[in-house]
């Protein structure tokens, strides 16, 4: 079990965005969470290749050019396109200074499972089916490499600080927060975009079918990105964060011990955060509808927190988004804080488990949005939330 003890800072969230099956941007995503609106779209026209199902929680009408313009967006793989849009929207949402002068101190930590698996596979496919095995499309070569979305996002936005890709799969959300806190705490960077991206494709869909055999679990896609900084520095400058990631803890164990690994992670993260279990209003889990793993996560959560906290199951809305799941869970917690002023200053927990035996948690304190973008009304009143 490792954790953010020994000097890692509290991370302030000073902006965020989501590109999701249920809404785009923090506002669009928040609205979907408030309404409990689930994704689900006809995906039969998205690809030439066959799909195991005509419906999925994909974003068939996503077009990078709608957000970024046509220039430079023609040869992007889908993961990179999603990342570019999510990072752009995140940067537009923050009051952190990101410009030519500060760009060297602004970085990006992006989670993934294995990059654009579709692009890698299609590149590999060309080596088999083309007349010569080297007659691959060189333009797509960078996209076949796992760190392409992060690298291209840095180029697009001029982010010359640390650029990292964390292949965390289900744990990616916790991984990027953890890795990001270390980078900020050790002075490697001042401002980080931290999140994850996952694309829908025939490759993902067929792989997902094998992984969830016997269960009806919709596959999703999307990206969520948070602007994080040292919370003390943010407050010292008179700025108000929307949320704070107080601590995180995670570890690995035998897959059959996942519930215990998770329980230990939650307990430790709470202790590091200085928060009691009965202060926790909600738990955003990665439960997705496969009994074994869900059972372990549920057991770990109940063992550490009891039955009190509200359970936030964002995968019911966005589907199984693999590495982007953790970031969507965090986004869902923030959406609840935006929608319900009664949650101002209260603490929630985010949990993740993986089928490989990794499990852990982060502790998040959410605040009311300051100033003109304050929530319009209490949770569920139907009013627009900015």
């Amino acid at each position, binding site marked *: *079990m*490792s*954790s*953010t003890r*020994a*000097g*890692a800072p509290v991370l302030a969230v000073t902006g965020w965005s989501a590109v999701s099956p249920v809404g785009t941007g923090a506002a669009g995503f928040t609205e979907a969470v408030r309404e409990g609106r689930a994704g689900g779209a006809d995906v039969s026209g998205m690809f030439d290749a066959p799909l195991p199902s005509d419906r999925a929680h994909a974003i068939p009408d996503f077009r990078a050019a709608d957000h970024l313009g046509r220039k430079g967006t023609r040869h992007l793989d889908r993961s990179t396109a999603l990342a570019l849009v999510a990072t752009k929207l995140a940067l537009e949402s923050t009051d952190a200074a990101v410009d030519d002068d500060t760009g*060297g101190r602004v970085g990006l930590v992006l989670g*993934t*499972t*294995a*990059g654009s698996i579709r692009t*890698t*596979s299609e590149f*590999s*496919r*060309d*080596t*088999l*089916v083309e007349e010569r*095995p*080297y*007659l*691959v499309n*060189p333009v797509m070569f*960078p996209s*076949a*490499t*796992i*760190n*392409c979305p992060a*690298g291209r996002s*840095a*180029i697009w*936005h001029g982010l*010359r*600080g*640390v*650029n*990292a*890709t*964390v*292949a*965390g*799969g289900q*744990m990616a959300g916790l991984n990027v927060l*953890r*890795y990001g806190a*270390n980078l900020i*705490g050790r002075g*490697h960077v001042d401002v980080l975009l931290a999140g994850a991206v996952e694309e829908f494709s025939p490759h993902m869909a*067929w*792989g997902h079918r*094998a*992984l969830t055999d016997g269960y009806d679990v919709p596959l999703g896609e999307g990206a969520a990105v948070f602007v994080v900084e040292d919370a003390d520095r943010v407050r010292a400058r008179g700025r108000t964060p929307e949320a704070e990631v107080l601590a995180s803890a995670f*570890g*690995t164990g035998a897959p059959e011990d996942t519930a215990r690994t998770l329980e230990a992670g939650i307990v430790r993260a709470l202790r590091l955060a200085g928060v009691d279990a009965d202060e926790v209003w909600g738990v955003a889990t990665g439960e997705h509808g496969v009994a074994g793993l869900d059972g372990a996560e549920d057991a770990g959560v109940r063992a550490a927190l009891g039955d009190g906290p509200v359970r936030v199951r964002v995968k019911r809305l966005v589907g199984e988004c693999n590495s982007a799941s953790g970031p969507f869970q965090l986004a869902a917690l923030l959406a609840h804080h935006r929608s319900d002023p009664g949650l101002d200053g209260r603490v929630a927990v985010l949990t993740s488990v993986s089928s*490989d*035996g*990794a499990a852990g948690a982060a502790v998040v304190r959410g605040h009311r949005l300051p100033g003109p973008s304050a929530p319009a009304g209490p949770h569920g009143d139907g009013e627009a939330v900015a």
Partner: protein
Amino acid sequence: MRRVVVTGLGPVSNVGTGAAAFGASVRAGRSGVSPITSFDASGFPHRNAGEVRDFAPEELVERLDTAEWGRSSLFAAAAARLAVADAGLDPDALSRAESGSVMGTTSGESQIIERLTEEEVAGGWESLSPHLPRQVPASRLAYAVNRELGLTGEAMTLATACSAGNYAIGYAYDLVRSGAADYMLAGGADSVLRWAHAGFFRLGAVAEDVSSPFDRDRSGIITAEGGAALVLESLDGALARGARVYAEVLGYGLNCDADHMVSPNPAGIAECMRRAHANAGIKPGDVDYICAHGTGTPANDLAEATAVLDVFGDSPPPISSVKSMLGHTMGASSAFGAIASLIGMREGFLPPTTNFSTHDPALGGIDPVPNEARPADVRIVQNNGFAFGGNNAITVFGRVS
């Protein structure tokens, strides 16, 4: 803050498995390059790679079921197992301690993606082997290490392409330094891939026979593979248990060119060197040896030399590339660079740049340690790693006297 040292080295390479065999090969300038056997390369004009032909994971790992893990994960686990043995650590004590792993990679388990792709081409989507998709996530490289060694701390896989090994060492260093972990296994792993060989070839970046870094007539990389792991622990802990200390990790620097996906940028690389020096608390004049990224492509070696001359002046320290021997092991390469450097530091030699024949006037006064290892008293090493996406990472090591 604790001082952090390296006490164990675990190379699984095409020039030797284990620190002794690997060190002897590097010192002798042996080549690990051979004709490709892991896929049918007959249709490629350039058919050499740095495969680890004798890799026998079942003989190296003790706990993992090798059928359940991809080749890169097995490289990672085998390297970590070797590193722990080299460190003289009791495996049970290690698994009871606060310990975890950070592994770097370029392509993770892309070999599994290639197998699934072959199945799709041959038999359609319905024919995919149901057990393979779960082996695809690159996160499994670090999970393989934790599972093999029974580590209960974090397992993180950093997929920052060809500098990933240095990212991993840097992060592990921070965790031990802050006290968040007592022992960390850090390194990298990658496997030879048909698609990557094709992609680099299509970019004009694959050499026909061997790689000749810093040579005037250098023509590209040799795609290669392997696993490399280092044991990091606190200096106090190492001294208390009477461990052999290879070197102290002095610090590291990370930045991003934010300029071009595949072309290196000398200004970005120079900035990364300055960051690494500042983080390590050293000045350029303190560096005795630079273990180069040194891929052997015209663009990399020119950009790297330009940055070195910018930061160090006209008479920089010797800079050599172990990729001349191993080929380009991608996400493992900077971890292999660290291992070669630390063995050289301990045994008193600089690893050579082999296959060198003609000085390149465009590279100024750099000294590539041509062809033969050189006796040297090395106190501080700078280990370079650069990557697609402008992901620069440099680690700095110092001798503990």
